Each structure stands twice: as C-alpha cells, then as structure tokens.
C-alpha cells in the first residue's frame, strides 16, 4: 500500500463522512436578562460576527434569531460565547440546517464543517430539507435542564466530557 493510495482513501472516506449541509438559522433564547439594554448588548455582540447576516430580536421572550450568511460555516460555540461575553447565558439554542437526503449513520454522528453532531433523539432516520435541532450540551441549555439531561444520557461518554465542537442534538421535528 503506497502513500498515494492512502491519501486517496482518506480523501474518499472524508468526503463520505463529512456531510454536505449548511447552518442557515440559529434561534437563541438568552437567560438572565432584565432589560432591553441587556438585549441590545447581546444583539450587538451577535451582529459583530462576520458570519452573521442579520439578527432578529423578540425583546419579550429574549429570543434572538440569527441568520447566517450563505456559504459560510459557523460554530454554535462562537454564538454561545458571544451571548456570554454580553454577560448572559444561553437557555436554548435551536440550529436550523439544510440537508439533502442524509441518512443518520449507525453511530448517530454527523460531521459538518469539522464539527461533530451526535444525534441523541430523532423521529426519523433521514434528514432532508430544513431541519431544526436543539443542542443539548452544557452551556446550551439552562443549568437545571443540563442536570436532568446528564442523568438521562450518562451512558454517552462524550456528552459529559467531549470536545468543545462536539455537539449532542435532538432533532426537533421532521
């Protein structure tokens, strides 16, 4: 087996495991807010990211709808960090991704732009069109909810101590 063959093999495997999909929209529910000035701080933090096209805000529910520019990859972690920089926390993050008939593999792991998404809950084995999913990791849900989730998913080692760009998700509806 020569080096060239291995390279081709790696490239072949990579194209198959790295699913072609794009984050189009992220809905963030922020917690710990008391005022529209605080919402504005988060709003300005999110808008300053180059990958962000626009931000819609519901001041009464503190929900930020972040539209991502086309053909750009963004890590959900980056968005979470921006909310925290403003002095608040993420209570819920729903990521909408566009898929083209992608089957959830047996190990439940989808690799997109170098980020790993492990499907913990899903109603269907096939992902097609705009698919919203919720990130269940620490820092993406309230502290209370994470306590419950970590009990429920205690058998998944990466859930409690995975990499910072390894996400665990629940597919919302298909």
């Amino acid at each position, binding site marked *: 087996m020569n080096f060239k063959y291995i390279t081709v093999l790696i490239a072949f495997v990579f194209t198959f495991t790295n699913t072609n999909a794009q984050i189009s929209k992220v809905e963030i529910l922020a917690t*710990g807010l008391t*005022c*529209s000035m605080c919402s*504005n701080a988060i709003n300005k933090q999110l808008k300053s990211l180059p990958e962000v096209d626009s931000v819609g805000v519901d*001041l*009464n529910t503190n929900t930020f709808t972040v539209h991502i520019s086309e053909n750009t990859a963004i890590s959900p972690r980056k968005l979470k960090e921006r909310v*925290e*920089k403003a*002095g*608040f926390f993420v209570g819920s993050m729903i990521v909408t991704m566009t898929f083209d008939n992608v089957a959830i593999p047996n190990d439940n792991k989808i690799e997109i732009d170098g980020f790993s998404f492990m499907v913990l809950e899903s109603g269907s084995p096939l992902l097609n069109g705009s698919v919203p999913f919720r990130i269940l990791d620490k820092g993406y849900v309230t502290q209370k909810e994470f306590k419950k989730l970590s009990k429920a998913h205690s058998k998944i080692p990466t859930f409690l101590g995975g990499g910072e760009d390894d996400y665990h998700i629940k597919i919302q509806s298909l």
Partner: protein
Amino acid sequence: MRKFLVIIFTLSFYGVKSQELFVVTDPASNVPTGSLGVRLGHSLFKEVFEPGYNYHLMPEITYGINKSLMVRTSAFISNRNNSLYAEGFGVFAKYRFYSIDDLHSHFRMAAFGRYSFNRADIHQEQIETMGHNTGYEGGIVATQLIKKVAISTSISYEKAMDNRPDYEFPTSQGNTASNYTLSVGRLMYPKKYTTFKETNINLMLEFMGQTILENGKTFLDVIPSIQFIFNSQSRIDIGYRRELYSSMLRSAPNGIYLNLDYTFFNVGG
C-alpha cells in the same frame, strides 16, 4: 423601616420586568465585554453647617474586560471651594464569580474593590471614598432576579486615609467602616417591549447604610429614583437621597443625583 419593607415586598410580587442598573449601587452583573460606558454623574447636596449646596461632578468610564471582569475610573470634581476643583480620582474593579441563570430568574455574586485618591479637606465623620476620602473599599454584592424583579444587596469594608498632601485624617474620628446596601428595581414602561428604540422607564428604591467600626456611629439613607433608558443605549437617572437615621456628623446628607450615561458597544472587540 417597616413601611419600606412593605414597599419592597409589594414591588417584588408584581410580575413586571425590572432593572438592576441601579442609580447609586452596582449590581453583581457587569457591563458587556468590550463595551465602554461613559457617565457624567452630578450631585447637588444641601449643606447642613453653612448656606448653599455642595455640587459634585463625577465623570466615569467603565469598560468590560471579559464576561466576568469590569473596570472603572472616576474623577471627583466639586465646588466646595466656590469654584470647580478637581479633588481626586478613583479606580474600581468588579469580578463576577458566581452565576446561576434560569429562564425567569438569576442569582449572581461579585466581588469589588475600589481605591480613591482625594485632596479635599475632611469635613465629616461619614467615610466616602467616592468623592470625599482617600482610601479603599472592598466588598461583595449579590443580585437576585425572581420573576423579573431585581433585588440586590452588598456589604463592604471601607478604610479612609489621609487626604494628602494637606489634610490628615482626624485622629478623633474612626477611619474604618462597614457599608451595606439594598436595592430594588422595577420597570414601569413599557408593559410589553416592541423595539430597541422604545424608551424604558424604571423606578428604583435603594438603601445605603454605614457603621464606623471604631465607635459604632451609624447612618441609613433611602434613595428613590427614576430612570429613563433611550434607544437601549443611553440613560438618565434622577434620584433623591434622604437621611433616615444618623448618629454621625455629616456635612450634606440630603440631595439629588443626576446621572447621564451612554454605552458604546463592542469598542474593544
């Protein structure tokens, strides 16, 4: 005192959005990372032992270094010598070390410290490193938000030193104190938010007390205030400070505050 406790409890049972951007105290929350807050603080207090008013001008700059740490620098300018005179400056830092946030509540704690230099004459027993005394202050603050009502309380230790170069701290007075504060805030308008441009109106009620540790002399003040927030970016606070009780000598305990605030977001990334 009982009356005020009733007011606090009444406020805390209304399920209305509230504020923790208090007028005379700091909450456990910090300014956002990379944002620059500029304040022009004015206060006009009636002199007790002489005719007239004591005017203080206090420009401040606050910067959020990261999500946990903010720093502030203040200048103290007063008219005590009839013309405006720069009496000193102060530096302040606050570190948020504890946060539990939930959808409709949060509890946060922070530690803070201040050092101030002042060269004005020492003319009262009250220790105030914000504009009167050279010295330092260190303490902790806890802020709770329950069903959108914010209540904040702090306790601190304050030590006054000589106001160099001309004024030594009088040996007859105690130069260390403990301070305690209690603040409650409530949003009055709007009932429901529509845009960032909408003006917000908040009502605040704050209590500030001090006990001189050497001799037990104490005061307790109440500060009701109204706050307007414009465009989710600038603020005007108008407050009235009134002495409720005092066993110490204070030269001008009662007066009004007028703060003008502006926040520049994402100045430092």
